[in-house]
Every structure is written in structure tokens, then in C-alpha cells.
């Protein structure tokens, strides 16, 4: 029996997004982990090409949570019990348009839910472009994982 990594709410959210036709990509370190990087992260970053508040609200409701379009300093967010690890990403540094990146994304089965994931080489491009210290610190590990993937011909 395999171990489930998603909460019930996370799983329900991803299933609802898929069912509602909402396009999203798992990006950032979550994507890097799925691609085989031995790193760590606190969040599962979901990059949405377009914010459709009605469908996001419906998806969140099906997961027992909520969607807020943001107010004040609060950016658009998904929340509620079991959804605290999910972050909404609106822009991704250094990448092409969402549509372009989505077209070359990798497909994974995550706890039985089909998801699209930003390839590791594109995660590295984004991390380099972000120019944040925490991103720069992760790049050597990301490069090592990319070298391992290429040697194993996973890319």
C-alpha cells in the first residue's frame, strides 16, 4: 500500500480543479520534489494561468475550504482545514506565459489525481530569475537532481 501525501482537502481540491477545467501547474519546490529533488518545502504552489474566482470558489467549496480574491495585503488565497499548505501563485519569475509552460509541463499521478508539473529545468530557470537568497541556496541541489535525471534519461 502506498503512502498518501495529500490531505483529503488537498486531494478534493485538485480533483475539483480538474473536474471544473481549471488549468494550473504545480511549480516551485513542490515541482522540484516531484521531479526527484531531495529538498524540502512547506507549501504546494499552484500557478493559475487565469484567476476565475467563481470556479476557484466552487473548487474550494468542494474541498471544504474557501477561496478569497484577496483584500488589503492579503493576496488571492485558498484556505480552510487541510488546505493550509496550498499557495496560489499568480506570476512566476523568468518563465514564459502560463500557456507555453503548461504545454510542456509533465504529467504526474499524485495520490491518484492527475496533475501537471513544471519540469525541473524550468523550476531552475524560475529560481535563478527570482534572485531571492532562499532560491539561490536551493540551486545546487536542483542542479544535482537535474544531472541525475538526465543521466537516467528521465528528461
Amino acid at each position: 500500500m502506498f503512502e498518501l501525501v495529500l490531505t483529503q482537502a488537498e486531494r478534493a481540491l485538485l480533483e475539483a480543479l480538474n473536474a471544473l477545467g481549471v488549468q494550473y501547474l504545480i511549480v516551485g519546490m513542490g515541482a522540484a520534489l516531484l521531479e526527484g529533488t531531495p529538498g524540502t518545502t512547506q507549501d504546494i504552489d499552484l500557478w493559475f494561468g487565469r484567476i476565475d474566482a467563481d470556479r476557484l470558489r466552487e473548487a474550494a467549496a468542494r474541498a471544504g475550504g474557501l477561496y478569497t480574491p484577496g483584500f488589503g495585503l492579503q493576496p488571492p488565497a485558498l484556505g480552510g482545514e487541510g488546505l493550509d499548505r496550498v499557495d496560489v501563485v499568480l506570476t512566476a519569475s523568468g518563465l514564459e506565459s502560463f500557456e507555453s509552460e503548461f504545454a510542456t509541463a509533465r504529467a504526474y499521478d499524485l495520490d491518484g489525481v492527475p496533475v501537471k508539473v513544471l519540469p525541473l529545468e524550468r523550476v531552475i530557470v524560475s529560481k535563478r530569475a527570482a534572485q531571492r537568497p532562499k532560491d539561490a541556496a536551493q540551486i545546487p541541489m536542483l542542479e544535482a537532481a537535474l544531472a541525475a535525471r538526465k543521466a537516467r534519461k528521465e528528461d
Partner: protein
Amino acid sequence: MASLLSVGDTLPELENLTDQQRDWVLHSEALWREAHAIAAANPGVDPGDVYHALRCLELSPSQRLGRGLTRVRTRPHAG
């Protein structure tokens, strides 16, 4: 890694291991060899990082993500 390399090609202590333990050690050493070869072909890449990446590639995507998420689930999956 250092202890494995220091004993050369023969590993007498393998005789004291169970079959499962012996398989793990031999597989691990093979991964280290592969990691060093990959690192040698990619200047600046650390062989230790490559080794752990190779280990991760042996896991399912869910297992990979699960190992790296530092915040535990707030609500266990009931399914």
C-alpha cells in the same frame, strides 16, 4: 562513502549482513559510483546531492513530495 572506498573492492563485513542488508549496501555503493560519474561529467555538481537525487528517483512521485513537505498534514487522510 569514505568507509566503503577505504576497504577497496572487497567488503568482508558483507558476510555478517543479512541478504536484505547486503543488497542495500551493494545497491547504495552502485548509486555512489553512478553519482560520482555524473558529478564528474557536471562540474560544480556535488556527488552527495546526486546520490540523494538518484535515491529520490527510485520513489513514487507521492513519496518524493511527502518526504520533502516539512509541514505535516493537519488532517490525516481517511481513505
